[in-house]
């Protein structure tokens, strides 16, 4: 296939992302929003593939689609009557909100296209093939400390979730149980 076909496929995915993200925000049914998010996540994974970031794409699918979205749907379905809830908040402020969003967008786009001096990697140093191995090496050497701390973050999330969502339990007083 030639590069034109790749471009067409890219814009197809981009359209899916934008469209489904709009559905997430606009839809009044929270289930529809959740399923819209599914397509957004998938589309973003495809963009990662285009960026030659295969590991991130896999992570996106496994963690976001396989985990977080499932959790989100669990949350929606476990909560009574949330499907009928009116999602509109009282303070909407569409005009200032839109103004701020668009100006930030314009600023970012302007910078990215005209004023950015992105750091570029020389061609001979660019990664070829899968990026899983370089990521693994970086995680185990340079970034070994952040890597270990990630497990502390996960642990505190584990403890916190268990505390907030577990069944009731007797409180302990000074005298013991």
């Amino acid at each position, binding site marked *: 296939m030639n590069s034109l076909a790749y471009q067409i496929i890219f814009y197809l995915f981009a359209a899916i992302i934008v469209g489904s993200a709009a559905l997430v925000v606009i839809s009044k049914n929270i289930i529809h929003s959740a399923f819209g998010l599914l397509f957004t996540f998938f589309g973003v994974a495809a963009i990662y593939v285009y960026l030659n970031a295969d590991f991130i794409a896999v992570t996106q699918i496994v963690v976001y689609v396989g985990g977080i979205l499932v959790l989100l749907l669990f949350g929606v379905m*476990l909560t009574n009557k949330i499907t009928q809830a009116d999602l509109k908040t009282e303070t909407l402020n569409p005009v200032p909100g839109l103004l701020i969003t668009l100006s930030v967008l314009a600023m970012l786009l302007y910078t990215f296209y005209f004023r950015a001096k992105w750091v570029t990697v020389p061609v001979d140093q660019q990664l070829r093939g899968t990026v899983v191995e370089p990521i693994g090496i970086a995680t185990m050497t340079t970034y070994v400390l952040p890597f270990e701390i990630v*497990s502390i973050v996960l642990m505190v999330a584990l*403890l916190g979730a268990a505390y907030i*969502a577990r069944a009731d339990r007797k409180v302990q007083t000074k005298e013991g149980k």
Partner: protein
Amino acid sequence: MIEAYLPIFAMIVIAIVLGVLLLTLGRLLGPKRSNSEKMSTYESGIEPVGTAKARISVKYYLVAMFFIIFDIEVIFMYPWAVNLREFGVSGLVSMITFALLLLVGYFYILKKGGLEWN
């Protein structure tokens, strides 16, 4: 590089086409003779009991939460496992430390009855 993803893309396209095609064909060709029995909720042949919108225990949510956390742990193991031999003992120690911290958290949940189901 990106050519490697063509089969996946083809699979996505086939899945969409097949799904849309079969549903459309079924709607166009199938006979439509509905009665109240057919329209009722299908629950493996048993009469449905209660409403589908009953509130479910928060424990399911907890399980999903734990799933995500260990999901992320596995994701971190993947790039490590690919290079397992290169890292040798030091890589093993790093990964064991990583897993140990989470394991202690998991053990704590078990002891506290976070996964008990009664």
